């Protein structure tokens, strides 16, 4: 178990100009569950592969514990990795798959059997130890891949979208299994996903990447409540935050005939007149049309526990605002005329020109 440190780590793929990972600074605490999240091409997988030693580090350094592993081969880094497609050895049984590392390390047979059995028990794989991967279900294969990592008792677990090949139901179940397993074993874990729900639910902290650049790294709560820029605001949360570009005039931010006041520090931080107003679906109060921003309900998505209304404001028929009525409010119906008021505590303000959050 160990700390992991990325120090200005950069990877530029041969033949390309822009770095896939650019000067990444990230400190992962001992025993922490760190999730790297971002859209495809954001460099999250490249960052993980750099830590694994599968990808060269062009600039900067990477540390595991106190050891500089920048130029160390994968086999000598004392890490275990779970691959997106599991990468099980098709010709070996489950037991052989899980015990491969120990066999390579020439551990005594009895010890290998013992440790494989322990890992299998932990993952409910005992009945399948003699099967080949081809005869396992997707979920079982995923667990074998986990077992292969667990049995090594490594310094760090690396997981590259390990749930993306499971169906939706299994994914939710496995999500909690992995998170609780990690907490029990206490092994530092770096987990890559493009799914912000996975990131929010599993990570102690979440690092959001875009175009190879780290945007923000913090607890899920902070990412959700205080996104550092428009990208993070739009990426975290589902359905995503409503981002409305407006402008500033004397009183403050102008939004559909209303004025949202700005503090002097916010005003000082602005680089231009443009302000992007961010309000999450649950941040709206539904009022009568003449009280709030008048709008028409286009579609209502009923999810049982929640419902989402897609509404079109009258001031801009091309825009859609997603609203989640809170439990105290009645769910509007398709075609209803309603008024919207953003709750002051739910308003996020960003500088439109730079995308950066204005100080609170």
């Amino acid at each position, binding site marked *: 178990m160990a700390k992991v440190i990325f120090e200005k780590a950069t990877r530029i793929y041969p033949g390309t100009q822009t770095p896939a990972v650019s000067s990444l600074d990230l400190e992962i605490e001992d025993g922490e569950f760190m999730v790297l999240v971002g859209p495809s091409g954001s460099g999250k997988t490249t960052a993980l592969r750099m830590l*694994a030693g599968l990808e060269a580090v062009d600039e900067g350094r990477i540390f595991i514990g106190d050891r500089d592993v920048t130029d160390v081969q*994968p*086999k000598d880094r004392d890490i*275990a990795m779970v*691959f*997106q497609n599991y990468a099980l*050895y098709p*010709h070996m049984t489950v037991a052989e798959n899980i015990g491969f590392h120990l066999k390579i390390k020439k551990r005594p047979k009895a010890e290998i059997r013992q440790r494989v059995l322990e890992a299998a028990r932990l993952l409910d794989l005992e009945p399948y130890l003699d099967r080949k991967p081809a005869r396992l279900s997707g979920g079982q294969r995923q667990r074998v891949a986990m077992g*292969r990592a667990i049995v090594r008792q490594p310094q760090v677990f690396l997981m590259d979208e390990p749930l993306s090949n499971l169906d939706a139901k299994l994914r939710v179940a496995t999500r909690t299994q992995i998170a609780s397993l990690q907490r029990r074993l206490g092994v530092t874990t770096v987990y890559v996903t493009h799914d912000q729900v996975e990131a929010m639910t599993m990570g102690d902290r979440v690092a959001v990447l875009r175009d190879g650049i780290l945007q923000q790294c913090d607890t899920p709560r902070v990412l959700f409540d205080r996104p550092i820029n428009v990208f993070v605001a739009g990426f975290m949360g589902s359905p995503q935050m409503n981002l409305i570009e407006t402008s500033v005039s004397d009183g403050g931010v102008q939004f559909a005939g209303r004025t949202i006041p700005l503090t002097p520090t916010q005003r000082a931080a602005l680089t231009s007149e443009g302000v992007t107003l961010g309000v999450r679906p649950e941040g709206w109060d539904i009022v009568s049309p003449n009280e709030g921003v008048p709008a028409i309900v286009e579609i209502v998505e009923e999810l049982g526990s929640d419902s989402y209304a897609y509404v079109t404001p009258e001031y801009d028929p091309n825009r859609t605002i997603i609203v989640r009525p809170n439990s105290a409010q009645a769910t509007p119906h398709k075609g209803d005329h309603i008024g919207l008021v953003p709750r002051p505590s739910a308003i996020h303000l960003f500088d439109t020109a730079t995308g950066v959050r204005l100080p609170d």
Partner: protein
Amino acid sequence: MILGRRESLTGRVLLIILMVVTLVPFVSLFVTALHESGTYPTGISWPARPHWGNFVEAFRAADMGRLLASSLLIELGVVPVSLAIGTMAGFAFGQVRMRGYQFAYFAFVLGLTLPYEAILYPLYYQMRSLGLLNTRWAIILPLIALFMPFSIFWMRAHFVNVPRDIVEAARIDGANMWQSFWRVQVPLAMPAISSLAILLFLWTWNQFLLAIVLVDDPLKRTMAGALGAFQGHYGTDIPLLCAGSLLILTPTLVVYLIFHRRFSTALLQGAVKG
């Protein structure tokens, strides 16, 4: 696939024609081999009294037992070595990709286009200067070299398609290159290796020209090569020659029948991955 009546009929007729074209020489060979020794049978005609003894006669006359042993020795010299080198080189070209591998690989592929008849003369003198003429080494060593381009081509086609994840998983599991090759790659390559083994076996078995040119003693040649000597001694004895040919064919037929499923997948594999 749904076929029209005419399509399926045409297909069947074509298949039957092809089958007849393939089978006729064998039938002719077989029928002729049953005629009385020393006669000149014409066309395909069933002899009045089939001389089954011709096979025994041919077997004895050509010292077939020792030829068989000789052929097996040559197979043992060629096939395992070719497989070992071909697999390792295929792995190197397909996955390790050391600096400048494209040039080396290009050179080997160039070797595929080389008609080996063209190097027969130099080969003869080379073998003579090495003092290997008239030994089985004169067949074994050139065959290993001549099969190498194909073996490498074949094995590389396999290794190129091994999922990268598995290779990386082995590296992270702590395997060095040799361990990853031996414990993960070779077991996964078994289908490709065994189909290559069958092809190499058949090509070695059927090797005629090299055997004739480089080895004088028929008993040190391959089975097919021995056929040449056969013709010299029994040039006039067509039925015995035919019986001998059939005997020589038998082992390849047996190999084919045992492995025919794998053999056709091997050919298809080449077709798709080539």
